[in-house]
């Protein structure tokens, strides 16, 4: 290795080290905007996605969307007061199954995407806030726009979404009723089983 080469590597590492923290601190609205822009770009141009290739669609969601979600917080919120009744093992299984279910739902939503555009509203939040709501609007020609809001929380690894609110319907709140009902019927294990069965049916369909 020549000295020049060594120097180049060190310089690259330095730049990366400087660039990374600023990337991690990307503002929540900028993060949502960039991510949805990138995903929609793929949905519009990727021939496999356009042909409805479920495997490819899942891959896009897994690699591009999921890293921006805080699934633990999401699952805990959907569980409500039942969260603390679950053992750590049960909690782990719940997070896993809920995550799979959401990937599946999101895949379905993406295949329905046509030619809508997304507009973002200015973020009105205290820059030091640990919790913000990013507001956006999906505009479809000739139809009433649909509001999509993202509940975002600050984590050491940057901002993460913990709720998606479509037209006033919060995903987390909606699942709280579902989870409550399952737990009332068969306990936390009953809920884990229902989620597992649902997801197994899903993979059969995918």
């Amino acid at each position, binding site marked *: 290795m020549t000295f020049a080469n060594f120097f180049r590597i060190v310089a690259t590492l330095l730049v990366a080290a400087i660039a990374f923290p600023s990337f991690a601190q990307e503002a929540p609205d900028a993060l949502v905007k960039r991510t949805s822009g990138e995903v929609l770009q793929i949905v519009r141009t990727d021939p496999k996605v356009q042909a409805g290739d479920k495997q490819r669609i899942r891959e896009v969601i897994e690699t591009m969307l999921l890293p921006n979600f805080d699934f633990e917080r999401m699952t805990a919120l959907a569980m409500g007061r039942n969260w603390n009744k679950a053992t750590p093992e049960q909690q782990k299984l719940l997070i896993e199954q809920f995550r799979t279910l959401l990937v599946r739902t999101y895949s379905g939503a993406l295949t329905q995407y046509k030619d809508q555009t997304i507009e973002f509203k200015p973020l009105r939040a205290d820059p030091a806030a640990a919790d913000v709501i990013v507001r956006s609007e999906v505009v479809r020609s000739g139809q009433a726009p649909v509001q999509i809001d993202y509940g975002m929380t600050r984590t050491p690894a940057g901002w993460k979404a913990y709720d998606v609110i479509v037209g006033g319907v919060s995903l987390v709140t909606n699942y709280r009723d579902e989870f409550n009902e399952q737990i009332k019927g068969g306990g936390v294990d009953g809920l884990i089983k229902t*989620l597992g069965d649902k997801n197994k049916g899903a993979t059969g369909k995918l």
Partner: protein
Amino acid sequence: MNMRAMMPVLAAVLLSACASAPGRVDDPFEPMNRAMYAINKPIDDHVMRPIAQAYVDYVPKLVRQGVSNVFGNIDDLFSGINGLLQGKTEKAGNDFGRVLVNSWGLGGLVDIATDLGIPKGNEDFGQTFGYWGIPQGPYLFVPLWGPTTVRDGTGSLIRIWYGPVGYISYVPLRNIIYGIGAVDIRANALGTTSLIEEAALDPYTFVRRAYLQRREYMVYDGSPPPEKDD
């Protein structure tokens, strides 16, 4: 679906809902509602959904858009009235303005007002009652109609009763218009219903919660008070 023919059904369900019963506070008639949901499911699977899907597949988008716009024009008129009933004069002004502008565009076939940037108010009687402080009352699931509540269902009855289509005296034409309206509504909801099937553990609970959340959001014009965590 003949909306007028549906009225006695909806009215009967609303009346029977007035007799109190134990259970969830927001859904005291859950057993009855679940039975209605079960009746509705095969009808929707085998009749309403296939018709709506065929409509989307075979009728050009331009025509479907025109149909939605005509019904939307009538909705705007009622939205304006409800805006006034809630003292939201600016919204009401927009809605009446939309009706004036769009009625010139081939009776509402072309939605010129949206292109001009006049927003839809999307108000209805159920929201007006909510704005006046009347609670939702028991949740109801009505076959062929879908989720509603005593409050919103009453609002829908008023809306249908005074809706302009009811004044058409030639019954076959009136029924055809109601039928097209029903297909238009179902077709626009195709994406939503398939998503519910993907997402829900129990579609009945899922639809109920989503409906109640959505209506609450609409009553508060997009900024409802935060829900408690449990």
